[in-house]
């Protein structure tokens, strides 16, 4: 090669000018940013604005006043709702986390038999939507019609054994049972990461099993348990379905139901400004709790109970206690899974609501599963539900993918802000987000006329689920070594090809899991659809809600069983995919 050829620049035709790639990632950034601001910040902002302007939403009057806040603080219902919410949240979270911790300890640290099936059964309650779970427990423990209460009626002193579900305690217990799978997973993760040598050291020092548990294991797991506790306190006071089905009919109101009935009163005109005021207050309360949660978690990190070493600790021998432990597990399954499912199936097979009995056995017929098709809105609702699941899960995961790419791979300046904004919906109570979206789209009815259509539900679902989806995708993107993509570029693949043949293939398991998990949640979501409901966007949970409100228990339970079966099949898919990828990971490790 001559020196002249060396110095001459060649092939200027394939030169990429500066700025091209910068621009394309900036366009993505601006688009995502605008969307997040619109679905997360705008609803909250406009809700706060509406709470200060009572006449603004419908009359367009501008008059900033604190009247709403003053009258809310004077409202005797506020104190009552506050007390109920607090008691309900306390009972639910204490129960959920205590049971979760016991299960975590039993499955992670002892030689309990049948661990694998127990683990699988423990996750089942996540497949039962809150609305359906609440209906099942009313059917089981209602003071008049509850199947269990009727079955116990023949006992002497029956009223001491009977349990009235329609109380703050009842609501708390039902929500608590529902929280068990989540809190179990959360605490099991903490227990698993705990260095077993710390326990071994206590044994060597002469401490017995009980002493080690109380002096070493529990204190070490405490930050994790406290974190789980606050997390589930927040999520239980946010939940609307259980108080609405169990408490409201007997006049027990919590924050979430007050907020809902201000926005959607059963009779009379909606007072969106009052709902906005409740919503703002609710947001402040949950914001404070989320802040405390963050503090606890940061505090917990200092408690370095965590090592990266993955060796199994010595399992504690349960001995004769294993039967008691198994009995405890059995009681939970019977109460939390078997009874609710059985009572739903029983009621769906009866022409009218009645407790299980020999007489009822003769009338057993599954004709209601055919009769649902004659419901005027069933086919419509089914179609809407499927469209909603497909569109919002796909949109959520696609957005999450782009967000993850921006956060992990790009060098846009505001990527931290995107990361933060995409997580924010997690801290906003669903019902508050729903009210915010409602006000926003009523305000924008001429600009973006989607109020009352299925599309507003899609927006609401994506806004709520984006925090989960983006967490999954960001985590998965971080796990993919940057060099895997760089290698493709070196091999001559351009950005699109790298994205298609390498990046998307590597994050595919996370995308699938995230999609199915989102689909499960969309399938069981009631709060947002109920708030934004009109005749045009009925989905299955709304149909269940209205059949139940119309005292048509047979139809409501039939629809419930159909919904649960649908969720189970989604979960089966999820389980299959997880199993397959775990198998693959094991092979790779070998």
């Amino acid at each position: 090669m001559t020196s002249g050829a060396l110095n001459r620049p060649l092939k200027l035709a394939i030169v990429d000018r500066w700025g091209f790639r910068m621009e394309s990632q900036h366009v993505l950034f601006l688009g995502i940013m605008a969307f997040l601001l619109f679905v997360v910040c705008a609803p909250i902002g406009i809700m706060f604005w509406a709470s200060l302007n009572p006449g603004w939403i419908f009359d367009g009057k501008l008059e900033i006043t604190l009247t709403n806040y003053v009258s809310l603080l004077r409202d005797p219902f506020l104190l009552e709702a506050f007390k109920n919410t607090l008691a309900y949240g306390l009972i639910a979270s204490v129960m959920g986390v205590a049971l979760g911790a016991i299960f975590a300890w039993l499955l992670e640290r002892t030689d309990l038999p049948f661990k694998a099936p127990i683990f699988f059964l423990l996750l089942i309650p996540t497949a039962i939507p809150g609305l359906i779970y609440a209906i099942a427990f009313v059917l089981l423990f209602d003071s008049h019609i509850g199947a269990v209460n009727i079955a116990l009626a023949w006992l002497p002193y029956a009223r001491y054994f009977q349990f009235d579900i329609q109380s703050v305690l009842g609501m708390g217990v039902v929500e608590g049972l529902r929280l068990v799978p989540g809190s179990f997973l959360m605490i099991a993760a903490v227990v698993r990461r705990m260095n077993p040598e710390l326990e071994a050291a206590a044994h060597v020092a002469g401490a017995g099993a009980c002493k080690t548990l109380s002096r070493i294991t529990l204190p070490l797991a405490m930050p994790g348990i406290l974190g789980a506790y606050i997390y589930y306190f927040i999520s239980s006071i946010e939940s609307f379905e259980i108080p609405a089905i169990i408490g409201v009919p007997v006049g027990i109101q919590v924050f979430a139901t007050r907020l809902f009935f201000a926005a959607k009163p059963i009779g009379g005109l909606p007072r969106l400004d009052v709902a906005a005021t409740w919503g703002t207050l609710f947001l402040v309360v949950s914001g404070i709790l989320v802040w405390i949660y963050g503090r606890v978690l940061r505090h917990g990190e200092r408690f370095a109970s965590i090592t990266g070493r993955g060796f199994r600790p010595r399992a504690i021998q349960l001995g004769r206690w294993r039967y008691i432990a198994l009995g405890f597990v059995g009681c939970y399954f019977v109460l939390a899974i078997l009874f609710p499912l059985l009572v739903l199936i029983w009621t769906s097979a009866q022409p009218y609501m009645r407790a299980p009995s020999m007489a009822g056995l003769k009338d057993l017929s599954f004709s209601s599963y055919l009769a649902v098709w004659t419901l005027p809105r069933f086919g419509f609702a089914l179609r809407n539900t499927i469209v909603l699941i497909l569109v919002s899960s796909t949109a959520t995961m696609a957005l999450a993918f782009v967000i993850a790419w921006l956060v992990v791979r790009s060098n846009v300046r505001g990527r931290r802000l995107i990361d933060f904004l995409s997580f924010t919906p997690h801290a906003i109570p669903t019902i508050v987000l729903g009210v915010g979206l409602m006000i926003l789209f009523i305000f924008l009815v001429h600009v973006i006329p989607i109020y009352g259509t299925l599309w507003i539900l899609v927006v609401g679902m994506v806004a709520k689920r984006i925090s989960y989806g983006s967490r999954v995708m960001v985590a998965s993107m971080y796990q993919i070594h940057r060099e895997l993509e760089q290698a493709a570029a070196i091999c001559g693949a351009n950005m699109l090809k790298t994205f298609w043949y390498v990046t998307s293939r590597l994050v595919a398991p996370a995308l699938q899991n995230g999609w199915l998990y989102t689909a499960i949640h969309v399938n069981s979501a009631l709060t947002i659809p109920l708030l934004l409901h009109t005749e045009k966007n009925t989905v299955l949970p709304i149909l269940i809600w209205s059949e139940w409100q119309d005292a048509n228990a047979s139809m409501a339970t039939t629809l419930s069983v159909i919904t649960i079966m649908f969720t189970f099949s989604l979960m089966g898919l999820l389980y299959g995919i997880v199993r397959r990828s775990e198998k693959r990971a094991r092979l790779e490790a070998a």
Partner: protein
Amino acid sequence: MLKVRDLKKSFLTEGGAVQAVRGVSFEVQEGEFYTLLGPSGCGKTTTLNCIAGLERPDAGEIIIGGAVVYSSRDRIMILAHRRSIGMVFQSYAIWPHMTVFDNVAFPLVHGRQRMRKADVQERVRAALSLVRLEELGQRPAPFLSGGQQQRVALARALVQEPKLLLLDEPLSNLDAKLREEMRLELRQLVERLRITTIYVTHDQVESLSMSDRIALMLEGSMVQEGSPREIYRSPKGTFAAGFVGKINFMQGRVVQAGAEGGAGMVETPAGVLSCNALQSREGEEVLLAIRPENISIRREPSGQENNLEGVVEFAAFMGDSLECVVRVKGEMLRVKLNPTDEMVAQGTVYLHVPSQHCIVMPKTDERS
């Protein structure tokens, strides 16, 4: 073959901008094995990524085989996938969702030069036989050992027959024994194929044994460039001397300046030593550097110059050598001996340092 001129690159971090590369220039001839050597954070990998097109430099110029691939003045930036290079990454970057064959075939199927299926088969087979993995083509990538992954990565880098091969610490994830084998094999392979190679490493033994030329880097700048012998025998400055091999440093003062390239005298706490190639002025404070293996040891004093009397403080048997610490009037000197000298290295001993091995460097510079 490769020209890098005044390359600059900085990164934005939470603590502000960090200058990773501060104006590095070098030229690599066709077929040369050129090593960028330095401690972690010296900018060697950033320099390599700039050559590959994976990083966009802030300023400078890069010319590969006569084609300008980057120039800040002419505003040219050719992206990585349009540069004709092969690269082996530190993590190997073997795609886990493909077979060995698919990994190696990727550049031919999705890369710059597409080819017919039969040709792809032929080229991949040839590349795999080059790294002695012919029989593993259909194996999924996750079922490979570290050494095999390394070979696959090499085959993938070579399958396009690139003009330039970039290697980013390719041996650092292998165990010691395999590393030694691969070092030889890699060197022989690129020599046989006559590919210009840029090699990045922090391992001085690797760099000395493999390279035609070494560029020693520190804090984003090039400290010294030269053949392995030059770098080892006449390091420029204390960093170069200390980073490549072990060395003894002593404070000293020039008592007699040397003639043009001739010997001079340096006074050290251990005694006055005659030193070669002394370019300093008389009275100047200097540093004297002596490699441990250049010091010999005797029981009796000899009449030669540069004789020092000392006491053996400590001796460690290393298998293939005997390392001693000898105290000479308060200075501790490390001495590397043949293991058969064990009987000699006890009590009072006499050290001899040939004057051509006494390296004199100015005291003022701390690092470069």
